[in-house]
């Protein structure tokens, strides 16, 4: 049996780990076992997340997660060449474009992992462009509604000005 971490050397060591009350045994080669053991607190192996993901992909995509893959059917990313089968095996996408090529099939995976399919956080300052302004606008509008409901009218007036300013910015593009 090959090592679950490097997939190169034979597995000779069993490492048991307990995460979230769930016990898991990893079959590792000696070198990988040593590397994992040598880790101090702070950086715990990310293997589990990958294995967990591989399990998900196995269900969603219907590909075997280990061993040789027969007939790599399905989509392939035109930018980096990654196939669905490769993705299902490694749990890693090949490039940013992969998200577009595998899009519809990734959605259920996102929902399972994150319970969500839409980003609502930070947007790059320079290249985020319009999205950034729109997000900011939405936040300000929510704050405005809150200010009005709390009858903080001075604050509401400030917010209204800021919203007008941004809307102008958006129109001028």
């Amino acid at each position, binding site marked *: 049996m090959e090592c679950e971490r490097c997939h190169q050397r034979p597995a000779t060591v069993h490492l*048991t*780990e*307990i*995460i*979230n*009350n769930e016990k898991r045994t990893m079959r590792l080669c000696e070198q990988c076992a040593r*590397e*994992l053991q*040598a*880790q*101090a*607190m*702070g*950086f*715990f*192996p*990310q293997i589990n*997340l*990958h294995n967990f*993901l591989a399990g998900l992909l196995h269900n969603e995509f219907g590909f075997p997660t280990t061993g040789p893959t027969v007939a790599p059917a399905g989509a392939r990313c035109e*930018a*980096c060449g*990654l196939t669905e089968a490769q993705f299902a095996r*490694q*749990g*890693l*996408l*090949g*490039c*940013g474009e992969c*998200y577009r090529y595998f899009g519809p099939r*990734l959605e259920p*995976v*996102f929902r399972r*992992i*994150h*319970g*969500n*399919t*839409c*980003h*609502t*956080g*930070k*947007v*790059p*300052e*320079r*290249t*985020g462009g319009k*999205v950034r302004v729109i997000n900011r606008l939405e936040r300000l509008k929510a704050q405005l509604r809150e200010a009005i409901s709390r009858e903080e009218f001075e604050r509401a007036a400030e917010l209204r000005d800021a919203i007008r300013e941004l809307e102008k910015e958006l129109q001028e593009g």
Partner: protein
Amino acid sequence: MSIRETVNNPHSHWMDGTGPESDIVISSRVRVARNLAHLPFPHLLSREKAEDVIHAVQTAIENRVFREKMGKMELTRMNELTPVERQILVEKHLISPDLLEDFERKAVVLRDDEVLSVMVNEEDHLRLQCLLPGLQLNRAWELVSRLDDGLEATLDYAFDEKLGYLTACPTNVGTGLRASVMLHLPGLVMVNQIKGVLGTITKLGLTVRGLYGEGTEAKGNLFQVSNQVTLGQAEEDIIANLISVTRQLLGQERAAREALYRERREQLEDRVGRAYGLLKHARVMTSDEAMSLFSDLRLGIDMGIIKNIPAPLIIELMVLTRPAFLVKVTGKDLSPVERDIYRAQLIRKKLSAAQQS
């Protein structure tokens, strides 16, 4: 501090013991994953393109505006370091062990004070990290975000309007954010409540990890709590959730310690005293044994049972007695038995020095 000084000095700012709640929260860490647009992710990257990424990062940190904003940061290719030096960066938690694999194509960027670092070509092109002592997640996010803005001023990130920051692993997509706290929870372990408490936490969208040895006890009673979800929640919300859960844990750990002191004071003092005695006098010490004794001694210090040892020294010892540092200190390769002997020696020396000062 140059990278040489970093690998020569076992101490890092995150070990200071200066942050809020530092009797229980050892450190706060925020990490974000970023990738450059139009390039394959690192695991599919050719040698030349990997070099392009390193070069782009080097240019970004040398940019005048970046330096005015962030100060001087130094990029070091992993192949410029010796194996021991590379391992030391892991033991100091400045890089992940993954950066050691296939290290020819990887690099690290460090700020002088070791608070901020960037791993280049790990699982993602860039992984920005901030590590601070105590409970300072908001501050850590603020610093990482500023570093992020500084880099983004010259680097084009892979970003999607709907999905956010694109990452090699779909478990990181969206914010790319992993926030975590390292907690020392000996009280909850001793009163046998740890399982229930941690089980509850995982129901709140957080992950708890301990480093387990052969038994079922986490080594050194250290637990890492981090967020699991990265898509669909704003960074501030993820962090606020983690802080509020951490505060609840702090309350429960303190209650457990008080109960122990009230109801099992002799046993507690005995346990702390024995740990102190062993650490002061043992001649051979494995790393597992050391970790568990460090935990007991640290608890004794936090509860005022031991008075002449500063608490941060224990964290420093945890790092200093890791294998790579022992090799560094002794200047030679060590067999496991030799390592255990040197470890015991070093602990004795450090503890007696602390007592005298």
